[in-house]
């Protein structure tokens, strides 16, 4: 502590303000009794009422929820296998395929999947969105699961094997319960990433499969009202709850360690 000079603290606190003030403003204006996000007029629940009567928004929310749940389930299974394989074996191709989607600009994955789906004659909609979301979520789950495995005591599995467990029994009864927090954290992460994704969804969605981010985008582009603030506030609340659960289960998972 003694080394940190006052300017370091000033700059650090300023950085935190820079990170949080914009989000605070979004939340505050969701309760503002004015159509303009400019000046505080008075408190109201009005925009939440508008939000809950907005059929398009509610349909988009259901779509997002469904896509998020299916994506989370499948990418957790595939991502756990990938993370385990990367930990257990010396593989060359799998790590590249798992990590590249995370590293390249998202738009590249969006457009290549668009070409691919049109080429195989798959109608763009919920299915194409889920298939795309799984492709980019596998990597995040795999990283979380692998990091959990790296911290594992190898001798526990060996002990199980010495006591007569088959490799499958040793995995199911010893390894799996130990890495479970990592798997659950990975599942929550995949769910959040899917619910929040805009860029890849933008290219792989059809006219009948509007998700929450796509709906927010069209509102921002066409007519901004504080209803956007209200839906943003609820979405942030949901993410916050999921993050708290994830950090309880696997400290470090949220940081993508």
């Amino acid at each position, binding site marked *: *502590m003694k*080394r*940190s000079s006052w*300017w*370091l603290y000033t*700059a*650090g606190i300023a*950085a*935190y303000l*820079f*990170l949080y*003030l*914009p*989000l605070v*403003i*979004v939340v505050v*204006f969701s309760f503002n009794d004015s159509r303009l*996000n*400019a*000046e505080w007029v008075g408190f109201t629940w009005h925009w939440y009422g508008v939000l809950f009567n907005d059929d398009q928004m509610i349909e988009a929310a259901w779509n997002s929820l469904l896509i998020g749940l299916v994506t989370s389930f499948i990418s957790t299974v*595939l*991502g756990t*296998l990938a993370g*385990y*394989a990367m930990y257990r*074996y010396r*593989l060359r191709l*799998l790590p590249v*395929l798992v990590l590249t*989607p995370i*590293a390249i*600009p998202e*738009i*590249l*994955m969006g*457009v*290549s999947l*668009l*070409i*691919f789906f049109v080429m195989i004659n798959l109608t763009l909609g919920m299915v194409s969105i889920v298939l795309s979301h*799984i*492709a980019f979520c*596998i990597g995040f789950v795999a990283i979380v699961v692998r990091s959990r495995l790296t911290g594992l005591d190898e001798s526990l599995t060996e002990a199980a094997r010495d006591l007569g467990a088959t*490799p499958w029994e040793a995995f199911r009864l010893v390894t799996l319960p130990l890495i479970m927090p990592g798997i659950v954290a990975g599942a929550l992460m995949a769910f959040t990433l899917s619910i*929040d994704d805009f*860029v890849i969804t933008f*290219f792989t969605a059809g006219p009948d499969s509007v998700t929450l*981010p796509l709906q927010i*985008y069209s509102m*921002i582009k066409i007519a*901004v009202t504080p209803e956007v603030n209200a839906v*943003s506030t609820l*979405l*942030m609340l949901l*993410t*916050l709850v999921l*993050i708290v659960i994830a950090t309880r289960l696997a*400290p470090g998972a*949220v*940081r993508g360690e």
Partner: protein
Amino acid sequence: MSPRAQKWLISGPPLGYLLVFFAIPTFIMVLASFRYVGELGGLAPLVGSGTPDELAGLTLESYQRFFEDTIYLELFLKSFLYATVTTLLCLAVAYPLALMIARSDKRWRELLVLLVILPFWSNFLIRVYAWMIILGPQSGFARAVNGVLGTFGAEPIPLLFSPIAVIIGLVYVHLPFMVLPLYVNLEKHDPALLDAAQDLGAKAWQRFWRVTFPLSLPGVYAGAALVFIPALGIFAIPDILGGTDGILIGNVIKQQFLDARDWPFGSVLSMVLTVLAIGFAGLAAWVARRQRL
């Protein structure tokens, strides 16, 4: 079950999935960049009506178009400049923050790091939208800025739909990617090095520039790569916060695929972006490895 079969059983499903939904689409995009445009836009079909040449043929037409008209190279250059400025500003904001966290009490570090990541987990569009509110013409911030400019006799400037807004949005969205690798690096520094430097008479700024900063370079490179590469291809931020002349290469790729429906040309632009992204990632890895020698 043989160990070999076991290995395939475990790595097979994710490998197969990513081959089908990542590797093959990428490969098709490479092919698409050498194809013709279809009658109704998109790609020319492999079978159906059209001259045999258009059906089975490959062409360099789209690549020629890319190099003939300098506007696309200029857009790449512009995107490169925006990404560079974003990376430098992120570094300027993130460095003191990461240093403060690394030097704070151990009990608080975990929480302070979590606080940096938390906004990153909120929806990307919400974070961009927040700046739409802050920079909007009627916002308190915009009026304050223009008030200050007014006292100096300057004309009021629009903040929203300007390059400034795009840069702010880019920095805001990518900041955590710079803070984390810097923090991971700075946290490992041995405080004894700074004590030694102090004992040998180094002043505060000398201790920073000659001990802390050189040691943190791997973190700087990692952070720079994590900010620069995604920033290069972004389209939503210029789309929402930028003005009519604020488009970057990501916006043109989006236009080619969704509006102009010239997929071969869109694929060419995507290919160039891919090559740049992989090139910079490789460069960052190479520089980081050289530093360690």
